[in-house]
């Protein structure tokens, strides 16, 4: 985004903060698709994603006065979205404790890079997204936060409520699970992981 565009967005946010409905509408139209896609990746169904998107923007509008203009707006938006989605998922109590235990005891294997490359080449993006549906909630959320919202480890730790040093373990575990599912060994893992 060029400096002029950034200035435009900043002005739009300032207008929205002062109650300008039109500016808010523009902000909404600009960011709603991305937030919906984020929710679509994080939540189990399309309907959940739609509801979550609406709820997130209600929250954002209420909290708009708290937004710090020194920070990128989209990053702040993703933080609100991530917290909301994670909160919803946690309330569903999807075997969280079991997942945590599994991750803590994860063996750190040294995978065969050749097999890894083969796996990537063999599968399409759509298959990856479909495989995401079979991941345990925390793993799925961690991948979405990192690779969709491009959150830092600190932000992921804050959202998921885990120690910062634990984030790498969660991410790596999630990748292992995804590889298993894509490689055809995922059915059992998915079942054990309690896909959301």
């Amino acid at each position: 985004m060029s400096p002029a565009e950034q200035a435009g967005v900043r002005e739009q946010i300032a207008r929205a903060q002062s109650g300008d409905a039109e500016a808010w509408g523009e902000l909404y139209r600009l960011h709603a698709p991305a937030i919906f896609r984020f929710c679509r990746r994080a939540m189990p169904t399309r309907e959940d994603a739609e509801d979550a998107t609406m709820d997130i923007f209600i929250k954002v509008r209420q909290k708009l006065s708290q937004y710090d203009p020194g920070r990128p707006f989209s990053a702040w938006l993703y933080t609100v979205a991530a917290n909301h989605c994670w909160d919803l998922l946690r309330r569903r109590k999807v075997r969280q404790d079991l997942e945590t235990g599994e991750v803590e005891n994860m063996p750190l294997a040294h995978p065969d890079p050749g097999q890894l490359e083969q796996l990537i080449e063999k599968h399409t993006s759509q298959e990856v997204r479909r495989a995401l549906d079979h991941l345990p909630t925390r793993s799925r959320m961690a991948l979405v936060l990192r690779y969709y919202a491009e959150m830092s480890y600190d932000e992921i730790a804050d959202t998921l409520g885990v120690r910062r040093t634990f984030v790498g373990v969660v991410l790596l575990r999630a990748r292992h699970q995804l590889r298993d599912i894509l490689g055809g060994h995922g059915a059992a893992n998915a079942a054990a992981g309690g896909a959301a």
Partner: protein
Amino acid sequence: MIHFDEMACLLYLDGQLEDLRARELLSHTRECGACRELLRSLEHESKFLAGALTEEDELVPARLLGSQARSAPSWVWSLAFAAFAAGAYWVWNDGIGPWLDQLNNAGFGGTNLMSMMLFSGAFWEGWGDLVDILQIAALLGVVILALGLVRRRLRRPAAVALVLPALLVAMALPQPAGAADVRRGRAVLVPSGETIHNDLIATGPSVRIDGTVEGDLIVFTRELTVTGHVTGDVIAFAGQALIDGAVDGNARVFSQHATLQGSIGKNVTAFASSITVTPGGNVGGGMIALAGEADLEGKIHRDLMGMIGRSDLDGFIGGQVWIRGGNLDVASTAEIDGPATFMGRQQPSVAAGAKLASPMRTEITQEVGRSRRSAARQVIHAIIGYGAALLAGILLLTVFPGFFRTTLREAGAIGMPLGVGALAFISGIFVFVLGILLLFIGVTAGLAGALLYAPILYLAQIFVGTWLGNKILGVTSTQTGAAIGRMALGLLILHVARLIPVLGGLTWLVVLLWGTGAVLMGFYRMSRLESAPLPA
């Protein structure tokens, strides 16, 4: 050679490895092909993942982008409207209709009831015309609201639901014409010999009317005594009310203890803990009574209709008698000139000397007195009720999935919807719609208001039932099939629980309060959903 593990490589790629360790890894990968290959593969995988996740594979729903996605197949709307109409018809036919019939039987139906319910001339002489206009307006409002709900698919329903009753009440409240005489004080007294050529509104701990009021008397007091003459109606909200004088119009008494020992020219409506019509008491019209106890020793020239815990009938009733309650004693001095019906837990006691136009028709409503046939009927009724509720739930889930999920989520909070439901029940819609509309606007408008409230009460079970089903089977998905299964289970449990005496009733009270609260909160949330994200 010691290799770096996958975790270290990932942390390095994500910039999370400490500087020293990162340098070690970099130096190692220059020499180690396996680790270099692993690093490259992981990086490739990260990019692949990011690409797969950020790919724009589906369109953003129109609901999120604007208002284009509001249309639904016309048959769904037809079905929804038909279901609503069927529900309204059922409420009217099974609930309100029989009640009105009973009122008719007691001589208070139709225009009589209408005239009884209205404060004709209390504030403004143009009431008669206004009543007709208001009733038409209220009915039109209900129709417009129903059409609006269907057409606009619940867009800002909470606002509509609030605005409409408020509008109706605003219309209903007449401008308090300066005609009424208002008196306040610790002891309001209209002494004997004084004549007020006007309506009188009196408030204070004690109100005593020994003189004459040429108009209506409206009283809010702890203790009311009327020994004088009121040419219009008496409307009294009083701890103790004694009417010992003459009232040419109607008497509407809301009181702890009400005693009538004078003459009432027209009808009496009494809501009281105990009501006494002394031997000297004379009611020119009929009487409707909701009371714990009633001693009726005087004369009621037309019909008597009451829901009374314990009734002693010693005097004269010129028309029919219909009483529902605990027990009824008809003394030998009593005379009933019309057919008499008693519905109660035990047989009424009728003294030998009592003059009855026909033998008293009695229905025993005690649980133990129920025949096997009525028990079977109850079960069939429960099954039909379950099926209807399930169908309504499926329809709701199909037609308004957003509203359904939102309301279900609100139901999950338990405490909040229960509180809101209780509040709405006690002080909100019920009092507002049934009380104010019924009294101020008229029966038709009141019933129309009740018809608005009835669907909410009916929907309450669906959300509580689905919540219960979710609790039992677990919330693993919000897909329609799974939601219907959970709804079916939850509703089944609720409807079975309903068959349990006492406990079933209590359970359903909680269900109604809880579900009503959830529905109201759902309406509120939906209105926020509709209004918040988009520009005004």
